[in-house]
C-alpha cells in the first residue's frame, strides 16, 4: 500500500498527488512513468511522473479525471492509501547537451513537460515554453513554468487567458523568426503532438514526443502499448515513452487509443453513479 502524502486540485478536472514511494522516488527521472492500481480490483494505469522528492521519498503525479479509474483515484484523500505503485518505468527523456529547447505542453500533458523544463533549466539550457489549454479555468502550473522558462507563452482556445489560439501558432512564429532550437519537446494530446510535428517537420527541427498508449504491465510483457515508429513496431513501455515525432504513426496511435472507448464510457458512468449514491 502506498500513502497519499498530499493532494491538491489544480483545476476542476485535474488533481495533483504526492505518493510515498521511496524506491521509485530514488530512481525517477524526467520523462519516465509509473503504473498504479487504486484498489484490489482496480485496473493498472500508466501515469507519467510529474515530479519527485528523493529526500522525502515521494513521487508527484498529476492526472485528469477522464474515466472510472481516475475518478476512483480522485476520491482518495490525503493520508489514504492506493494499492499499487510501480516504477520508474520507460526511458528518461534524453537531455544531455541540449542548449536551447522549446517545450510545448498541452492540457494535463503540461504536468509531464514541467519536470523536463525544470531539468533543462537546471543544466543551463535556454528554455522556451509554450503551454496551451482550452480555457482559463483549466490552466495549470503557470508559476512553476514561469520559474524555469526563459520565455513563456500561454495559449487558450477561447482567448480567456494569454493568447487566443493553438500552440503551433507561436511555435511556427518563433521558428520563422529565426529561433534555432536544438530540439522541440512536445507533450500533450495525440492530436496536438501530431500538429506540432507537422509544424516543425518543414524546418527540420528535431521533435521529441511522449506517447501514453494503453498499457497493462509496463515492462514489455503484454505488447498492448505497441506503436508504429519509422515503420517498425515499438513498445512504448520499454522503447519509449519518448520517440522521434517525425517517425511516429499518430493516426494509428489515435485509433488504437479508442479501442475500449465504449467500455470506458460505461465504466465511468457506473463509477460516477456509485459515488453519487454513496454521497446521498
Amino acid at each position, binding site marked *: 500500500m502506498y500513502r497519499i502524502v498530499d493532494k491538491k486540485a489544480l483545476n476542476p478536472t485535474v488533481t495533483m498527488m504526492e505518493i510515498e514511494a521511496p524506491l521509485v522516488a530514488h530512481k525517477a527521472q524526467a520523462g519516465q512513468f509509473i503504473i498504479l492500481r487504486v484498489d484490489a480490483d482496480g485496473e*493498472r494505469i500508466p501515469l507519467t511522473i510529474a515530479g519527485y522528492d528523493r529526500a522525502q521519498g515521494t513521487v508527484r503525479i498529476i492526472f485528469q479525471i477522464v474515466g472510472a479509474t481516475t475518478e476512483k483515484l480522485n476520491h482518495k484523500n490525503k493520508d489514504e492509501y492506493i494499492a499499487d505503485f510501480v516504477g520508474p518505468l520507460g526511458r528518461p527523456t534524453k537531455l544531455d547537451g541540449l542548449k536551447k529547447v522549446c517545450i510545448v505542453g498541452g492540457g494535463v500533458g503540461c504536468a509531464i513537460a514541467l519536470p523536463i523544463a525544470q531539468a533543462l533549466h537546471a543544466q543551463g539550457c535556454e528554455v522556451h515554453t509554450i503551454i496551451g489549454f482550452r480555457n482559463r479555468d483549466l490552466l495549470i502550473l503557470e508559476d512553476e513554468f514561469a520559474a524555469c522558462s526563459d520565455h513563456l507563452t500561454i495559449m487558450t482556445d477561447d482567448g480567456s487567458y494569454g493568447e487566443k489560439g493553438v500552440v503551433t501558432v507561436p511555435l511556427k512564429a518563433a521558428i520563422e523568426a529565426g529561433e534555432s532550437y536544438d530540439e522541440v519537446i512536445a507533450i500533450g494530446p495525440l492530436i496536438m503532438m501530431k500538429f506540432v510535428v507537422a509544424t516543425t517537420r518543414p524546418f527540420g527541427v528535431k521533435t521529441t514526443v511522449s506517447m501514453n498508449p494503453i498499457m497493462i504491465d509496463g515492462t514489455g*510483457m*503484454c505488447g498492448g502499448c505497441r506503436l508504429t515508429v519509422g515503420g517498425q513496431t515499438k513498445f512504448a513501455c520499454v522503447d519509449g515513452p519518448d520517440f522521434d515525432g517525425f517517425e511516429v504513426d499518430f493516426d494509428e496511435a489515435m485509433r488504437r487509443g479508442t479501442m475500449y472507448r465504449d467500455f470506458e464510457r460505461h465504466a465511468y458512468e457506473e463509477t460516477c453513479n456509485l459515488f453519487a449514491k454513496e454521497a446521498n
Partner: protein
Amino acid sequence: MASKPNMSNKKNLMPTQDPAVRAHNFQEVALGYDEAAALDEAARCLNCKNMPCVAGCPVGIHIPAFIARIRELDFEGAYQVITEASSLPAVCGRVCPQESQCEARCVRGIKGEPVGIGRLERFVADWHNAHIESAPEKPAFNGHRVAVIGSGPSGLTCAGDLAKKGYAVTVFEALHIAGGVLVYGIPEFRLPKAIVQKEVDTLKALGVDIQTNVVIGKTLTVDELFADGYEAVFIGSGAGLPNFMNIPGESLMGVYSANEFLTRNNLMKAYREGCDTPVMHAKKTVVVGGGNVAMDAARTAKRLGAEVTIVYRRTEKELPARAEEVEHAREEGIHFQMLTNPLEIEGKDGWVHAIRCQRMRLSEPDASGRARPVPIEGSEVTIEADCVIMAIGTSPNPLIKSTTEGLEVNRRGGIIVEEATGATTKAGVYAGGDAVTGAATVILAMGAGKTAAQAIDAKLSEKKA
C-alpha cells in the same frame, strides 16, 4: 498392502466438466481423482527397481515412493515425499507435460497407457490442501541473504529450496501479485489462482519475503542488490516480449498478443462482470500458433463467447501443445486450420475484419528437427474474424541484461548459464527458466530453480566454513 497390481491397460479416466458446460465458464476443467480412482490408479504402478519415471522428472520426484504411500492410504506421507523434491505439487500435477516426461518412461506405457502419475500427484496435493492445516515451520536463519528476481515457477522453487535451508530469501516481483506465468498466463480453468496463492503462502510461512511492484532493472539493479547485502542473486524473470509476425494489419484494433489477452483475463480478471479492466468480447477469434499458450488463448476466447479457430503452419503432429490441451480444446468446439499461415490481417474502420492466410505443405526437417512448412503458391484463404490473437512465442526482456554489467546473453537474448549450476557469467548471479531457455514449461523452470538453489547453497556454505 502388497496387494496385486492392477493390470488394466488403461489409466483411470480423469473426470472433467462437460465440454458444453465448461466452454461457458472459467471453473476448472479437470476435476481430479476421488480416493477410489486414486487407489485404483496407484495399484497400476509396478514399483520398478530402476525407477525410469524418476529420471524423466526435471525435479527428480521419488515417484514410486509417493505412489506406494497412496496405496498405504498414507496420503500426507505421499505429499511429504513429493515436497522433498517439488515446491509446487498442486501446480505440477495440473500443468506438467507428463506425457513427455515421467509418464513417457513408465514401463506400463509399453503395452498400454502409462500410470497416471500427474493425476496422482494432483490427488495427493489436493488432499493435503483440503485436510492439513499446519503451516511448515520456519527454519533457523543461517546468516545468508539471497535475492530472487521473479516469482514464477523458477523463482518460487529457488526461493523455497533456499528458505528450507535457512536462507533469508527476498523475492522481487514486477507485477502486483506473486506467481508470474502461473498467475498472468495460465487460465483459471486450467490452474485455479487459489491454488497458486496457497503455494505462495506456504513459501511465506517458510520465511520467504515477497516484494511486489519492484522491477529489477528499473526500480533496483542487480548490483544494488549486492550492495544491499544479498550474497547471491537468482534471475527468473521469465520469457519477455511477445513476438508479432510483422505482417500488415497487426496494429488494427482487435489484434492482441496472447500475453496481453491472457494477462487481461487471468491477472486482471477482465472476464468477470464489473471488472475495471476491459477485454474484447469477440464474435469470431482467430488464434495464430500451436503451443500451450495458443490453446489457453483459444479456450479463453471461447469462454468469452467467440467462435474460435486456431491457425497453425504445420500439422497436428507437430503441435507443441500438450496432447491433453489440444484434446480439451477440440472437445470445447475450437476449430483447427492446420498447414495454414497468415499473410495479412485485413481491417475495416480500424478494426480487424478478416485474416488472409496461405496453405502450407511440409518439407524436409529444419534446424529444430521439425518438418519445415513451405507455402503452396496460389492457395490463399481468407478467414473472417473480428479478433486475432498472436501466440507465436516471445523474445527475452532486455531490462535486466541492459542494466547488469558482466551478464552475457546468447544470440537469441537468453542469459548464458552453466547448465550444471545455473551460474551466469557474472559472479554470484544465477539464472533459470524462460529467461535462459526462451519459452518452455513450468517444470523445466522449476528444475532450473532447484539446480541454482543447490549451487547457491554449495557456494555460500563454503563461504561460511
